[in-house]
């Protein structure tokens, strides 16, 4: 029996074990009453929050994003600094990463490339909507194999030893798809890893690896423009629709913790919280250091700050969010 089969049976067995008491509904009723009392308190606090954030939101509307900020009336009053929790703001200076290597050969049928940052590593990706992807990750941390694989064997990339992992299938694979991963170390000690999900053969994937040359590929467009950011943060994660800024040093563990911005599908129904208007768009401050701004088309801009990494007040979060522009 495989581990996966054991796991499935273990979970089914365990799910049947607990003897639940019948008081769930009573406990929920009590909780709902408590929640109502708490909500009254939150609404009172919301009056204060609105007083704090309304002025900067209205004023910054004139300065920023064409996406988040409609054209302001010409007669609007001049901007002033919003109240803050002592955060020092500065113009956003981070840059999207370039990729250090350039493929000399690529198999046919790939989608357009994109360069992302994942913690301390940089990733060159060719993804399509069907889960078919070829990605090359380079950096100080070995990339994840993503698939357990059926077999590992040794090979070479140029003069360098490499490990090749293969699997005849993976979750979401279609007929003819396979998984091939190649991992090796570059002469400067950085890890390089090439993963293929799709119809490509091992020899094709190795040909890509062996054809790489040390020539930078330009960075991809940033998913967002940020007007200003709290001082001391650095880019720790960037993909087509998500970006995080984190206090250095950036590690694999901290890369998605910090101040993060992402475009997401809107939850149905919308989460509870204090309703705001940010740059003319309806928004919700959910009370857990998260703002959700309605972008229309069932999409939201989620802005979150992990309080273990960065201390921002609600007003700070609103100030930051008001300066975010979605670029695509």
């Amino acid at each position, binding site marked *: 029996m495989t581990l996966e089969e054991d796991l499935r049976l273990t*979970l089914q*067995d365990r799910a049947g074990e607990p003897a639940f008491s019948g008081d769930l*509904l009573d*406990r929920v009723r009590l909780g709902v009453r408590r929640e109502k009392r708490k909500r009254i308190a939150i609404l009172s606090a919301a009056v204060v929050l609105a007083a704090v954030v309304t002025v900067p939101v209205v004023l910054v509307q004139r300065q920023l994003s064409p996406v988040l900020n409609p054209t302001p009336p010409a007669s609007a009053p001049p901007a002033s600094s919003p109240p803050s929790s002592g955060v020092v703001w500065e113009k956003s200076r981070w840059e999207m990463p370039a990729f250090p290597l350039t493929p000399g050969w690529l198999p046919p049928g790939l989608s357009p490339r994109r360069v992302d940052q994942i913690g301390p590593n940089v990733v060159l990706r060719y993804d399509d909507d069907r889960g078919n992807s070829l990605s090359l990750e380079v950096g100080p941390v070995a990339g994840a194999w993503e698939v357990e694989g059926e077999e590992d064997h040794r090979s070479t990339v140029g003069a360098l030893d490499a490990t090749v992992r293969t699997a005849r299938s*993976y*979750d979401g694979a279609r007929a003819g798809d396979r998984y091939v991963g190649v991992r090796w170390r570059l002469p400067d000690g950085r890890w390089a890893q090439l993963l293929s999900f799709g119809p490509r053969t091992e020899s094709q994937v190795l040909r890509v690896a062996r054809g790489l040359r040390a020539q930078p590929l330009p960075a991809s467009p940033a998913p967002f423009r940020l007007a200003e950011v709290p001082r001391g943060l650095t880019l720790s994660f960037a993909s087509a629709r998500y970006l995080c800024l984190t206090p250095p040093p950036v590690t694999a563990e901290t890369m998605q913790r910090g101040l993060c911005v992402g475009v997401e599908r809107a939850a149905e*129904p919308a989460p*509870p919280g204090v309703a705001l208007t940010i740059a003319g768009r309806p928004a919700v401050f959910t009370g857990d250091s998260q703002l959700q701004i309605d972008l229309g088309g069932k999409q939201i801009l989620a802005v979150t700050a992990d309080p273990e990494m960065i201390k921002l007040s609600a007003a700070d979060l609103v100030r930051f969010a008001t300066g975010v522009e979605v670029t695509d």
Partner: protein
Amino acid sequence: MHIGFEEYVRARGDTLRRFAFLLCGDQHLGEDLVQEVLIKAYRRWSRIELDQPDRYLRTALVRSHVSWLRRRSSGERVGVPAGTGPVGADFASQHAIRDDLWTRLGRLSRTQRAVLVLRYYEDLDDHQIADVLRCKPSTVRVHASRGLGRLRTDLASATTNAPGAAQ
């Protein structure tokens, strides 16, 4: 209280509690999680019940469980195993293996564990799990691979160290 909500909790409460128990590895934590999510859902029930309440609540349970906010507020330690079953005991018995597997599931990260529960208990594919966790399918694969890899390594190590294991 909304009649439809009460009926739903009566009918599906245990299913939600079973799922939350698997996510948390602890019955009491699981019940707290279900209670917390249902209380939040109550206010928006008229909209939730029109859609797919099971799917909505399953997603809410997972997201709430893996969120850093709840992790902090509950004062719970991450990665602490739920219970300490026998390690390296009778590996000839499938039951013993599953006891051990359950214990070791408690040592995975919350996200790894959630991915495995969604994949092997709820039978969701990686795209559906990615929707629940708001990440890419490739990230789901990473969590699953690391979780399974750690379980496999731990179990192999326990087998090697078990009394009577071949030297």
